[in-house]
């Protein structure tokens, strides 16, 4: 096609297309600059963090933490697990799931379902709180007590 033969029409060059694209991106960017997700992003994580810290603090105040650690010291991991699970489910809201870990001695999820490890790995946002405890074997060992929390739905037991 020749522009000489037919002089009527529009020229829409690649430059113009790119310019329009840039304009559209800029406009979309301006419109999205402060969406509601930004507010959640800032406060949602803060809340998760506080859930984690508050929970360990409350468990300490109620004496539950000492009882769990005592069970672990005595090798009664089943009792420690039941107590930790019951207390954490009582304290944390339903929509918040958890992984409670004492060193490599104890790991507790909200239920005995198989998918918790995957759910934990796939969680988008995880908040963590930690305390220290001592265990005496041949010598004193410091073990971290860590609580991970994230938002998610519960999994049934098998």
């Amino acid at each position, binding site marked *: 096609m020749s522009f000489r033969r037919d002089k009527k029409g*529009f020229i829409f060059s690649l430059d113009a297309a790119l310019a329009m694209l840039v*304009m559209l991106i800029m*406009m979309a960017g*301006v*419109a999205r*600059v*402060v*969406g*509601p997700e*930004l*507010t959640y992003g*800032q*406060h949602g994580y*803060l*809340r998760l963090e*506080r*859930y984690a810290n*508050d*929970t360990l*603090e*409350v468990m300490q*105040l*109620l004496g539950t933490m000492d009882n769990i650690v005592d069970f672990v010291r005595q090798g009664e991991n089943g009792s420690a697990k039941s107590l930790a699970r*019951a*207390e954490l*489910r*009582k*304290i*944390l*809201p339903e929509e918040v799931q958890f992984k409670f870990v004492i060193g490599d001695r104890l790991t507790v999820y909200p*239920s005995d*379902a198989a998918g918790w490890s995957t759910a934990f790995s796939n969680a988008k946002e995880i908040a963590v709180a930690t305390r220290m405890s001592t265990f005496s074997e041949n010598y004193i060992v410091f073990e971290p007590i860590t609580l991970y929390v994230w938002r998610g739905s519960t*999994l*049934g*037991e*098998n």
Partner: protein
Amino acid sequence: MNERGQIFTLDMFFALTLTLIMVSYSGLALEQARRQTEEYTMRYSLERTANDASDVLVKTIGRPVGWENDITTLETLGLAEENDGRPVPNELDIGKLGLLRELCRAGNWDPSKSEVQAVMDLFGGSENFEIKLIRKDLLWRKLLAGLDYENVITLFGVEIVVDAENMGTVIDVQVELEWDKEKETGAERAAEFTLVVQAENLSVEVIVGGGVMEVWSKITLWDIWPGWDIEDSSGVESSFEVAVVRRSVATRSGTIRGEVRSLVHIPSPSWNDYTLNFEIKPGELDTFDWYILLRPSEKSSPTTHIWVNRPAGGNSDYDFPPDTIFSPRYHGADDPKIANPLVEGSNYLTIRVRGSKWQWVDVYIIAVPSCTSLEAARLAPDKVSATLEVKLWW
């Protein structure tokens, strides 16, 4: 031929149209950006205020130290327990919450008062706030295999009846809540489900799934907002912008204002009786309900006699057995059965214990915000976990 004039080609028309569209869209985009920034700022401020307020409530004792002795001195509200002038973070002083509840009564809520202003300042100068204290508890957990279960429990004046049966492919559950001649029921029959039944400030949730049935109770211990005593609701449901912050706390359902533990029978001839002294501050007689709670080592012993504000002699005011809880002052009125009622200032109990030397009794003076369920007083010596929920709205 006249060569003067304007050329307005189709190209130019399109160019102008495009320019106008671009300009108007830019204007719209800017307006949208401005509006969103404004909304974001408002939302951010609301969230921030609610988060900060909840943090101050659960982590600090308030200012000045001891404001709970005279609420008119209140500068900054804080509800944490105090230990040697320092806060115990996340441990809520239920007495302070009771004082806040009193301050929020319609008759006491006057924004011209400095203490009311101090509370409003915590919420960004707003009266649109609500504070709830919620307790969640696992009542029963049963395996679904061979399930045929019925149980009854009374919590805070509500009788809860749960009847569950495994029918093979489905689980049949019926829940009945009964209180003050009112009744609420719920039923469900499926393989997996969640059933919620609500009664006033208590809800029962039955979760069936994963091979187990769990029955949870959730009770609102306190629900406070300005004018809670005359309005049915805080008005939060009619607002579009609400920030809700939940903090986990350890608390008691009442304050212990005096206690003596492990009282045993001291044999005659000394006939030694025990004395428990306690103070009631000005205004507290009507702000709180006052209870005497006994926790004996056995179901009906040791025998315990109590005289209120008088030495032992003549008929005692209260006796155990059968009762373990007594209310010398409830709902702003003295118990007509006792000779010397409680007074503001110094009070005392004379306690006589009779039993074997292996039997003992603990005696507590409990104060709970007025018109509270008897159960709150009964559970007061035990620290429990709860959720403090702060709602703030524009």
